[in-house]
């Protein structure tokens, strides 16, 4: 095999028909980044508002992603359904249902965030092109994360997401807190990435491959009997743990959550909203992919290792939810409170992932029943993510619009705002009720699905029932601090001489309403069924690939 034949092989694989065509949404974002940077050379940013290019690019890419999502699920008549799972670029990226689901999720969210920044005006005309370059770049990184099929892409995706996020957190250059937040974020983030890379090197050296689909079979052949007394098992466990440290950092899971409240408080509310939803969604997709790569095979030792991993993840999830909720009590800053609530929600979602691992590694092995139940866990996770997008973006958008009016993000300064701007107040109430998980809002359905899958997993390992109880108790704890915000907004009266907030219906109020309405639709309307059907199909296609 000479160089030329390798080159032709790669060129054929990357051709438009094989890979590049499937990669079109990412390519559109790449082109728009180049356009954003080049247009400055001809001073086009003087007369062209900088948000137009990213808005147009994200909507176009979203259209393509939605089309290919329905195409894969055979919902469009007359178009033959391509194979369920295929790979792009010589096996580096997976092109399956999860890839497409996350593409729609991320691109839709990107379009909403660009609209939000357009309305709230946080990057001014001067900084706009820079800001949107970073925003689009990190979205491409997240799309790579969610379609990673190779440990190289796992690392590159995480880094491509993180590096622009560091800059976005520190984007308000002159502010002391913003620079401190970015500095802490970059120091923690770089450290976690280094640890993860070392874990990947151990995993690659042990198994002799970096491709995720073959990891499980290589590991089953490798692991000797004797559990943790076997040095190879210990090294595999260490390597897996190191990779999970890097992922846990992105998910802001206890004990790697320290950066999250600081970064969110220092950053603008728009950036906080973006990071809390998009990077979480992509990191959960990547976590599911990584854990599924470990699952399967015939080795009993690998199964017991995975079971321990699943229970460990569940314990970490319970600790994360508890810590996030307890720390949120004493907060006086809204963005910091929402950051701790983000941590708590990462805990709830991680419980679903832990249940999936436990169910797939039960005594029955990976049979049809286990696959069905594991698919329910992923379904719950995806539903939760979809609801989470709207409730968190809604809350952060309201914080941003109120900041533009009263120049403050302290909870005490929110006194009486619920009556002064009734629309924002009502929408905030819906978002917070959904974050608590009260029916009839979408948060209830998502939480119910995750707790149901925890209950199923409890039949395999008792610890999952304990985690379920802790999760339920946490939901009740969280009631108090969310309600405190509402109490300040609605029951207290606006003090004399406080700045009057005026938020007009068009366009800010309409945007908030647009983001909040899906919470009702996803909580109590026929949309619940169609959404969960879509999530079920994605999950079962994903689990079907596990052998």
């Amino acid at each position, binding site marked *: 095999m000479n160089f030329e034949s390798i080159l032709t092989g790669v060129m054929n694989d990357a051709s438009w028909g094989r890979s590049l065509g499937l990669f079109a949404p990412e390519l559109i974002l790449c082109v728009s980044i180049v356009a954003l940077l080049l247009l400055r050379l001809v001073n086009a940013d003087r007369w062209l508002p900088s948000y137009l290019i990213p808005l147009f690019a994200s909507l176009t890419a979203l259209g393509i992603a939605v089309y290919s999502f329905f195409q894969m699920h055979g919902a469009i008549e007359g178009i033959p359904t391509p194979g369920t799972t295929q790979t792009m670029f010589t096996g580096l990226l997976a092109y399956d249902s999860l890839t497409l689901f996350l593409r729609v999720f991320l691109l839709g969210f990107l379009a909403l965030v660009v609209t939000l920044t357009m309305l709230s005006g946080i990057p001014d005309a001067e900084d706009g092109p820079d800001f949107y370059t970073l925003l689009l770049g990190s979205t491409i990184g997240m799309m790579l994360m969610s379609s990673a099929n190779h440990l190289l892409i796992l690392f590159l995706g995480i880094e491509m997401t993180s590096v622009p996020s560091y800059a976005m957190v520190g984007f308000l250059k002159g502010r002391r807190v913003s620079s401190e937040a970015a500095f802490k974020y970059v120091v923690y983030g770089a450290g976690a990435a280094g640890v993860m890379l*070392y874990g990947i090197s151990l995993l*690659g050296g042990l198994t002799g491959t970096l491709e995720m689909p073959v990891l499980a079979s290589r590991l089953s052949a490798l692991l000797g009997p004797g559990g943790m007394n076997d040095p190879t098992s210990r090294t595999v466990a260490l390597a897996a743990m190191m990779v999970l440290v890097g992922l846990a950092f992105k998910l802001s899971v206890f004990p790697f959550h320290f950066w999250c409240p600081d970064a969110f408080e220092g950053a603008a509310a728009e950036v906080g909203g973006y990071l809390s939803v998009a990077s979480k969604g992509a990191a959960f997709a990547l976590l599911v992919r990584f854990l599924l790569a470990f699952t399967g095979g015939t080795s009993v030792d690998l199964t017991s290792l995975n079971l321990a991993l699943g229970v460990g993840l569940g314990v970490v999830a319970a600790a994360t939810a508890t810590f996030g909720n307890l720390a949120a009590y004493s907060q006086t800053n809204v963005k910091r409170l929402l950051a701790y609530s983000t941590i708590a929600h990462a805990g709830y979602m991680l419980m679903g992932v832990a249940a999936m691992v436990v169910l797939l590694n039960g005594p029955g092995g990976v049979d049809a029943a286990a696959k069905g139940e594991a698919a329910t866990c992923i379904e719950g996770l995806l539903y939760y993510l979809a609801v989470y997008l709207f409730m968190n973006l809604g809350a952060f958008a309201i914080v941003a619009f109120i900041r533009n009016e009263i120049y403050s993000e302290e909870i005490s300064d929110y006194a009486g705002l619920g009556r002064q701007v009734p629309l924002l107040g009502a929408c905030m109430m819906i978002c917070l009720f959904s974050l608590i998980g009260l029916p009839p809002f979408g948060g209830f359905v998502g939480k119910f699905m995750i707790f149901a899958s925890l209950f199923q997993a409890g039949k395999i390992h008792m610890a999952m029932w304990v985690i379920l109880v802790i999760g339920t108790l946490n939901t009740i704890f969280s009631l108090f601090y969310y309600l405190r915000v509402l109490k300040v907004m609605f029951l207290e009266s606006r003090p004399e001489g406080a700045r009057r907030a005026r938020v007009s219906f068009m366009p800010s109020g309409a945007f908030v309403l647009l983001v909040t309405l899906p919470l009702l639709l996803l909580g109590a309307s026929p949309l619940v069924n169609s959404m969960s059907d879509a999530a079920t199909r994605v999950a079962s296609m994903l689990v079907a690939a596990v052998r």
Partner: protein
Amino acid sequence: MAGVDLTAYLLVGAVLFVCGIVCMATKRNGIGVLMGVELVLNGANVNFVAFSRYTSLGLDGQMMSLFVIVLAAAEAAIALAIALNFYNNHQTIDVDRGSELQG
């Protein structure tokens, strides 16, 4: 190169990794912490290159280390820019002095 086996390379990688972690944990100077990160990344790189020579990992390991070298440069660039911004606002790069965000 007779007599040098995989273990020797892994040992160098592990020593670099531990030095980097200790450096990150003990240095209070922001630039010092970032140097620790570089050590960790290069420890992993030594591992990758050694594995690609001695195990069936093959070219994948070398490709990975090339990507990591480029990525380390990108990360250092952004980290130094943020450190400079922190210095402009605080007149220090002592990581312990960034204590306005707490709770």
